[in-house]
């Protein structure tokens, strides 16, 4: 009995699907679909999926090929985080790009950085017709587009400049400081040094302290310190 228990304990464990409700869609008297959670695949590729995932992000189109990076909840493989399989698909005619050592990418000589990531829900649709299953289709729903996160340059943070005559979000895009809405939750409004075009840009790293006084300037408290990038 003990040996049997030990044997069971040693058996490889499959990830357990979280308890999720199935959804039934009635198409006609003879046809209905059952939508259920499905394990997110290791890779997502182009084609229709690529079309789904290839929407503009911060002015650029991400690669259509994605690799499953992480499953946040090990009991629920129907939700996963994806990152690009490679950076080759990034350029999309946008010109040169460089990547940092930790998997972030810049199109504008380090002025702005992107770390594309999608949080995806995976479902399968079993299609029944005349009482028989005739097809199974998988569907990948982007719950959250995290591609607009701006991360810092190399060893420290890059200064997040909220400017740029040309924001990179379109040929005529400009930053209007009097507008209370931005077009995107991130990169487009940080024109930075690379946005204006014309002439060379010199950037340098500087170590700065951000200090705040809560007593009218008598004493100062450091609230942040680190490397920042500035350009001229």
């Amino acid at each position, binding site marked *: 009995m003990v040996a049997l228990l030990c044997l069971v304990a040693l058996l490889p464990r499959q990830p357990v699907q979280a308890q999720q409700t199935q959804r039934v869609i009635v*198409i006609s008297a003879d*046809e209905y679909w059952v939508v259920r959670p499905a394990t997110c695949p290791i890779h997502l590729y182009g084609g229709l999926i690529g079309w*789904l995932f290839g*929407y*503009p992000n911060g002015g650029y189109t991400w690669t259509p090929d994605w690799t499953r990076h992480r499953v946040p909840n090990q009991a629920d493989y129907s939700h996963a985080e994806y990152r690009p399989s490679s950076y080759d698909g990034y350029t999309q005619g946008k010109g040169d790009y460089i990547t940092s050592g930790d998997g972030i990418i810049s199109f504008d000589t380090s002025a702005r950085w992107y770390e594309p990531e999608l949080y995806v829900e995976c479902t399968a649709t079993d299609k029944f*017709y005349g009482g028989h299953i005739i*097809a199974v289709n998988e*569907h990948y*729903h*982007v719950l959250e*587009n995290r591609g*607009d*996160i*701006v991360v*810092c340059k190399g060893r*420290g*943070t890059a*200064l*997040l*400049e*909220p*400017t*740029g*005559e040309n924001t990179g979000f379109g040929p005529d895009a400009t*930053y209007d*400081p*009097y*507008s*209370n*809405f*931005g*077009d*995107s*939750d*991130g990169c487009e*409004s*940080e024109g930075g*040094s690379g946005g*204006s075009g014309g002439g060379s840009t010199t950037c*340098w790293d*500087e*170590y*700065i*302290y*951000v*200090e*705040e*006084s*809560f007593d*009218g*300037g008598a004493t100062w*408290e450091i*609230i*942040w*310190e*680190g490397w*920042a990038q*500035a*350009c*001229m």
Partner: protein
Amino acid sequence: MIVKTTMALLSVAMISVPTLAQQRVKRVPVTVVFRDTPAAAAASYTVLRRASQTPRDVIVLVGPATGQTLTDAVRTLLYARLAEGDTTARDGVVRTRHSHSVNQHANPYPWAERVVRDVQAAPEREVSGVGRVRAVEIWLPPQRGRRLRGNIK
């Protein structure tokens, strides 16, 4: 049935993709004021953050301010927002200090000079905690949710 299935799939796909319109986000305001003090020979600025007064964040320009002056002030404010959030919990004055003297200045924002001209020509109005000054309100991208490396104290 194939056509119907394809159309249904496409409609599901269209619903799933966030549109650009959905990505529009509210910027965070800052009031730029100009304190006309004839005695001030050099341009300077002060960045105020307030917890309960409105406007919450105020940049006070003094003297012959330029677009570069406003740019430096905005950068200081953005750093503070990165460290503390787009709104603060305590009233304070923010400044940045370099580890060594830096002679170079970062590029002025292309719109900064225009805003400085606008504020210098704006009618005076009462700004709480500051007084009666020339003022305009500008909007900056939210800093919440961004990754900040370095050390938050």
